[in-house]
């Protein structure tokens, strides 16, 4: 899922301080599941702003609201009523949601309340780890289900680099927590799958255009008609 985290409240205060009528809008899909952008988070954010601006007499915070998904353009107008007088929207969606809202409400600043961090998995309750880089050319079938792009600090295709110790990446020290060496995991998984010959295959130079190096990517699904 898309994982987001709250921007520091100081940064949000700086973003919204010049506005008087602010609406916080949550997003009920990915970032709700990653516990930062759903309805509950929108209520909490509104309360936090009310507290932060309690001295500001001219501030009006609308009751927070939410959309099922802020990233679907045709959903927004039919299912979202913008209250009269809003002069700034604080969106708790991912970057795709913020931009879609900004595209719809052109005259109103749509400000991000979250930092969209990564595509991740919830490995423990409330603990999210990056697992996918959205590279557009998946190699998980060869690497035992461990992504060398998202999970290797150097994004190596022919790893490991030699910087891992006891299965932990050398960046663990600077990160302040254990980071598993993706290539250690890959080798272990391939052993379990009896597919170590995959490890012997040298990956060739990769085309990064499907990964976004050729500009923003676009996908068009052509639907089937019943007749």
């Amino acid at each position, binding site marked *: 899922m898309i994982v987001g985290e709250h921007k520091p409240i100081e940064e949000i205060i700086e973003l919204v301080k010049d506005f008087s009528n602010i609406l916080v809008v949550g997003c*009920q*899909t990915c970032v*709700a*599941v990653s*516990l930062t952008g*759903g*309805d*509950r*988070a929108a*209520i909490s954010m509104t309360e936090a702003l009310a507290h932060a601006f309690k001295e500001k007499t001219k501030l009006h915070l609308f009751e927070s609201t*939410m959309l099922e998904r802020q990233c679907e353009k045709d959903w927004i107008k039919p299912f979202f009523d913008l209250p009269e007088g809003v002069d700034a929207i604080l969106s708790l969606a991912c970057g795709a949601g913020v931009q879609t809202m900004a595209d719809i409400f052109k005259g109103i600043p749509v400000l991000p309340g979250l930092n969209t961090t990564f595509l991740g998995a919830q490995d423990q*309750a409330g603990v999210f780890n990056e697992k996918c880089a959205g590279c557009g050319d998946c190699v998980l079938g060869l690497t035992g289900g461990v992504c060398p792009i998202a999970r290797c600090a150097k994004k190596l295709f022919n790893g490991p680099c030699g910087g891992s110790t006891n299965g932990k990446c050398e960046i663990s020290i600077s990160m302040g927590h254990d980071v598993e060496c993706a290539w250690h995991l890959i080798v272990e998984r391939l052993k379990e799958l009896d597919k170590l010959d995959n490890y012997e295959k040298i990956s060739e130079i990769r085309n990064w255009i499907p990964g976004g190096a050729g500009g923003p990517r676009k996908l068009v699904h052509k639907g089937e008609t*019943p*007749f």
Partner: protein
Amino acid sequence: MSFFKVNENCNGCLACVKNCPASALNYFDQKDSRKIMHNMSLCARCGHCWRICPQDAIEFKVLLAGKFDLVKTLDLVHCRVCGEPIYTASLGETVSNDIQNSIEPLCPDHKGSEPINVWKKLASKRTSQ
């Protein structure tokens, strides 16, 4: 029917209500009873309630398995040749109006056939009856 099933282990601690990221759970204290409510429309199906419930009271599998509810019943049109159901009478009418022409009730297998073959099949069907 409710797809959100809470079993007898629930002791009303409200961990689920307080932690639902989509505000899909709520509760009401009325006189001598506490009522816990779930709103399927708001539910993000994230399973956070199930994950954090200290009593293992939420039977999330029921929500994931679910069942189909009947939402509408419509009359069908069948392929004139083989009798396969192809589309609803209502859809046929809509499309006929849109294209201002009648639609031949033929399935994809028989739609591409030469019209004469279709008529032959129809004729052979009629003679065999």
